[in-house]
């Protein structure tokens, strides 16, 4: 028999207020975006049409999305084995890594980008002038805390030592152990880190602006200065696209059985 859980009235009020807090600005933005660009009257989809007909929109949204995927891929390749080894063999290095991961939080992006531009000046043009080179590197640094702390929590939730030893005892190599045993059991953590990275890269403005790359937030800023209704429409579009991207990541990550519920089994 299904037991229905009743929500306490006070909890319902708080949930309602919370929903309002998130929904009201979106509704406001939606109404504003439905005003005509020419007459300023409601309600028309002209602002959306205007945005979709901008080639820069498609170019920048694609660039930002590809940059986000690149950042996620590099971060996972770099940090999953690192955090795994730290948990398995170099436990004393964990606080050092955690401290390093805090640096991108502490150092303001403006300082970070000035420093990075200076450090990487003199590198080959195909790297320094290319978004997938310099900007990708900067975004990996920016995403470091999100990815590290998400993965760290994932590794803490499983018995890394026992799972590794059990796998090796059955004949698996280090790589097989990492791919077949460890990765599937930290998938939820890796997904969480990936979501945060995606959201960060899709909305990053300062570094892209100072490094003079035309990413999606730069386009959003440009539209905001020239087309207020278009900017509102663009905000909602980007909101929808980011959520769609996150959901697709979630779908890809959850496709196979097992997953997060299994952490309890590992003890």
């Amino acid at each position, binding site marked *: 028999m299904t037991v229905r859980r009743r929500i306490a009235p006070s909890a319902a009020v708080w949930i309602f207020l919370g929903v309002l807090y998130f929904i009201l600005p979106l509704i406001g933005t939606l109404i504003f975006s439905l005003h005509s660009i020419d007459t300023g009257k409601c309600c028309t989809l002209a602002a959306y049409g205007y945005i979709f007909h901008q080639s820069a929109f498609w170019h920048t949204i694609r660039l930002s999305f590809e940059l986000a995927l690149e950042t996620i891929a590099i971060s996972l390749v770099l940090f999953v084995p690192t955090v795994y080894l730290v948990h398995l063999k170099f436990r004393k290095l964990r606080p050092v890594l955690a401290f390093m991961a805090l640096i991108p939080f502490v150092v303001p992006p403006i300082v970070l980008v000035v420093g990075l531009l200076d450090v990487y000046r003199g590198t080959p043009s195909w790297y320094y002038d290319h978004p997938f080179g310099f900007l990708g590197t900067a975004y990996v640094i920016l995403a470091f805390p999100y990815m590290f702390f998400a993965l760290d929590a994932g590794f803490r939730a*499983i*018995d890394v030592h*026992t*799972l590794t*030893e*059990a*796998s*090796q*005892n*059955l*004949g*698996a*190599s280090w790589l*097989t152990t990492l791919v*077949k*045993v460890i990765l*599937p*059991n930290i*998938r939820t953590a890796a997904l969480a880190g990936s979501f945060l990275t995606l959201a960060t890269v899709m909305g990053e403005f300062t570094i892209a602006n100072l490094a003079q790359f035309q990413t999606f937030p730069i386009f959003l800023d440009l539209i905001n200065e020239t087309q207020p209704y278009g900017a509102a429409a663009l905000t909602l579009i980007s909101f929808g696209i980011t959520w769609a991207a996150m959901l697709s990541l979630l779908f890809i990550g959850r496709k196979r*059985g*097992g*997953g997060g*519920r*299994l*952490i*309890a*089994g*590992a*003890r």
Partner: protein
Amino acid sequence: MAYLELQKLERDFGTVKALDGIEISLGEGEFLSLLGPSGCGKTTALRLVAGFDRPDGGRIVVDGRDVTNISPNKRDMGMVFQAYSLFPNMTARQNIEFGLRIRRQEKAGRTKRVDDLLELVGLGHAGDRYPHQLSGGMQQRVALARALAIEPRVLLLDEPLSALDAKVRVQLREEIRRIQLELGITTLYVTHDQEEALAISDHVAVMYGGKIEQMGSPADMYSSPATPFVAEFVGTMNRLEGVVVDGAAGHVEHAGIRLNVDAARGRQHQERVLVLVRPEALELAAENGGGANQLAGEVISQTFLGPVTRLKVSSGAATLIADMSAARAQALPVGARVSATVPAADARLLTLEGVAQAAVEEL
């Protein structure tokens, strides 16, 4: 001929000597339990055999081949861990199949082997369940099947029952022994539970301080402990410190009372000894004014243990322990004055010559 040999195995952790030159020789198909308290080095020895750790000295030989420096994934050892070690992302079937997949065994053969093993451990119905859907006992059965799937040269079990409740523990240990005998697999079993070790092993090695104190059959270990530590650790033992006063007649003086102990015959005059008597061998009766081999005392507690009732008796410097049926124990309530008769034939004797007094008291 020995199948598994641990030759002068040493392992240090900083200043702590975890293993101090242990030597073990085990025949093919035999079951050896490494028994000892926490920190005695038994798990370290097992991990060295599995290849998870490297010794500082000595060799590990399996079937005539030195495997000391071979990595764990190439040793062909099946291991069951203390903690539940099943891969959480895989079903019971996939867990068991894992080692076979690594060995690239063809699918039909894999499926049959997994089915057979699931039946062997009594989990034919639970192959598609994930670890979190299995009880602790079921998880350890799957872990056992997984270890056996690769047809290991040696089966290693690291306190596999310690996380289970008492009833399941007894059931599973009997199953482990049944399966081990059925498959004839050489097995090294680590436990701190002496009852478990005595119940299922061909041989028991009692470890203490990184050394093997005694190795032998469970019966030998129980009836003829070779050191005071083994006497204390394997089962419960009454220990009466004394001095041989007549080696020819087999007389030992304990707390001013002369005891006749067969095992004392031929001992040197004035030799310091420990007279050992199992609780079930100590005869208790209402005090009758003293007699040969009797120690007077007072019952200070009674503990019902199921098959027997355990009485503690305060007798001078020593506290004696005696087991008897509940019906007999009723006649000797707490506070009753009793006489404890030390059986001349069943009492064992250990020399304390060369053993420091502090070490004796520590036990």
